[in-house]
């Protein structure tokens, strides 16, 4: 039979080809990293973050920022090289992070990565990026321990949660809070932020009760009851908006009248949308400034809105800045740019961006500060200003 004969011939050929290509990729992986730059034409900047799953909106905010930067750079004509975009969807989950990172690493054209966006995913993916020598510049992963583990190429472009925790505590103290419930979602980011908030509140003399609400919880009435029964006059939720919204709904349904506060993972218009009214009066803390404050910010907002017909979300400008920093570094290095030299240039460089000026210390930690407090008013997230000014 013809079919059988074809299979007989095709099978060894296919296996042989597979074996050959496997060898091939092994070689090029170690040797000519960033080979795409050889002809001086194109470099790829990748982004790793959640593009699907319950917290996809936070990831899409950043992806849009990355894409906008690449588009502007290519269209400006100011650069000798062109840039392309590649995405790595990790759903924001540690379990998906390694394979998302591997896909990016295996793409020889990738010169640097913006991300991983979430702390849990960053913890898993950062060692792989380190091994491959690819810069992983996260615009948003705020768990303090990420820069304490000596990941060779991980850079954080945002103040970490240690600072955010202290800011939340001083803000609560200013509001006259005497006892608070801190709720995490058992994930890396939420537990990390929860720990620092709990510690800072304790130091401020505020009584703390700690609770955990797993991220896949579907029934929030019990935790709402726990909060109300505790008699606390403030609750701080340190996870992401997808769980914060039903929590806010249940709290208001059961008659909670105290303060509600969410971290940067909650600061997204989707939180307000999903909580349909129950988010009113909630405070949100974020190491990200209000873009309406000055002209650079407004200009960015306009460009973003023109491209995506929606306002920039949390960490859109931070992702844009990170991408622009990579673009500038690659451009300065020109044709000689490879994964290693780009990392050196960024780690020691400085970039005056839309959100802030990006510089890093020797551990890859962002060398700057600034936590801002927002409030949900009439279904809008409104800036109250820098926490240092608020607390005075």
């Amino acid at each position, binding site marked *: 039979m013809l079919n059988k004969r074809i299979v007989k011939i095709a099978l060894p050929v296919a296996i042989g080809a597979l074996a050959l290509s496997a060898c091939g990729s092994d070689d090029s992986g170690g040797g000519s990293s960033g080979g795409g730059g050889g002809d001086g034409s194109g470099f790829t900047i990748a982004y790793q973050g959640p593009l699907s799953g319950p917290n996809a909106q936070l990831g899409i905010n950043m992806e849009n920022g990355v894409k906008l930067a690449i588009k502007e750079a290519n269209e400006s004509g100011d650069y000798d090289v062109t840039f392309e975009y590649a995405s790595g969807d990790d759903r924001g989950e540690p379990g998906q992070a390694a394979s998302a990172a591997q896909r990016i690493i295996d793409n020889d054209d990738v010169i640097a990565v913006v991300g991983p966006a979430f702390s849990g995913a960053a913890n898993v993916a950062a060692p792989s990026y380190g091994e491959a020598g690819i810069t992983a510049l996260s615009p948003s992963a705020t768990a303090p321990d990420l820069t304490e583990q000596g990941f060779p190429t991980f850079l954080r472009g945002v103040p970490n949660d240690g600072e955010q925790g202290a800011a939340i505590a001083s803000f609560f103290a200013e509001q006259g809070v005497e006892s608070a419930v801190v709720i995490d979602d058992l994930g890396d980011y939420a537990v990390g932020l929860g720990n620092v908030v709990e510690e800072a509140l304790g130091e401020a003399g505020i009584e703390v009760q700690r609770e955990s609400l797993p991220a896949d919880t579907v029934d929030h009435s019990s935790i709402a009851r726990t909060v109300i029964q505790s008699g606390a006059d403030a609750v701080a939720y340190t996870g992401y908006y997808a769980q914060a919204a039903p929590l806010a709904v249940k709290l208001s349904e059961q008659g909670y009248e105290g303060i509600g506060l969410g971290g940067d993972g909650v600061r997204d218009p989707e939180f307000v949308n999903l909580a*349909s009214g129950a988010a009113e009066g909630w405070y949100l803390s974020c190491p990200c400034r209000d873009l309406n404050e000055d002209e650079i910010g407004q200009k960015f907002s306009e460009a973003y809105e023109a491209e995506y017909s929606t306002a920039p979300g949390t960490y859109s400008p931070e992702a844009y800045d990170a991408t622009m920093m990579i673009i500038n570094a690659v451009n300065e290095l020109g044709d000689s740019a490879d994964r290693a030299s780009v990392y050196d240039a960024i780690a020691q460089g400085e970039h005056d961006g839309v959100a802030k000026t990006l510089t890093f210390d020797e551990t890859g930690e962002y060398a700057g500060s600034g936590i801002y407090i927002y409030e949900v008013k009439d279904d809008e997230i409104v800036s109250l200003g820098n926490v240092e000014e608020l607390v005075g």
Partner: protein
Amino acid sequence: MSFHDFWDVLVLGAVLGSLYAVIAIGYTLVYGVLQLLNFAHSEVFMVGGFGGVIALTIFVPATDPSGLQSIAYVAVGMLFGAVLGGTVAFFLEKVAYRPLRRRGAPRLVFLITAIGASFFLYNLVGKLFGRNPMPMPSMYENKTVVTIFGSTISVTQALILGSAVVMLVAVDYVVNRTKLGSGIRAVAQDPEVASLMGVNIDKVVSRTFVLGGLMGGVAGFLFGTTNQVFYTMGFLPGITAFAAAVLGGIGNVRGAMLGGLTLGVVEAFTVEVWGDAWRYVGAFAVLVLVLMFRPTGILGERVARTA
């Protein structure tokens, strides 16, 4: 734990448990007639939730609905939840299971088909309506309707408890007192003899799916009123409701009700005492314990064949 706390937690558990009970009916009825673990039932529940939310997003224009409007909204949501749930269950049986039944496929094939159908459905919904949660439009002001022993019951809680009781009484009546019910019971006991006695097996099976689907769909909508709807929302409640059906005695309608309520209440007390992270640990420890001593569930497999 004070008496007031106890009562509070009991109410939370009963609300949750009554939803489990309504979903569990769908599992147990289908198991009764086909000995099939219809894992795609959790997706019937999910689709019902989406049906309700989408219908209401279209129909609810007012921000402060009057009392009459509120009732109409709830009715619309339930109707769309039920219709979509029933429709999906109907086609599920027709497309996924009936061809297998015709060819006398082994049990394992049914099980794999059920899991496949579940994956297909939730990914389809995720593709069509996005993978972000969708909020339920506010249909009424969620105030307290009644206070018992110092613990309050909100409109949503009363709505869920009330509709669950009505549905459970109705399904019990249908199974025990109507012609369709005797058909269901006959097929459950012995399909061959039932068909010799003039029962149209295909028709009974199809209607059993639809009956379970209607209830699952309404449960999806009710679930949406207290939370949000999202494409994977069927998974945890579905598995828990399936466990509830087994706990009560799979194939047994009253067993499913009892199992659902038991699991809901145990969950609520577990969370109260040890926190949310222990929720399913407590509930499923009870499941394992009960099955150790009563492998056929609390009430036994009454409707199903014994052999």
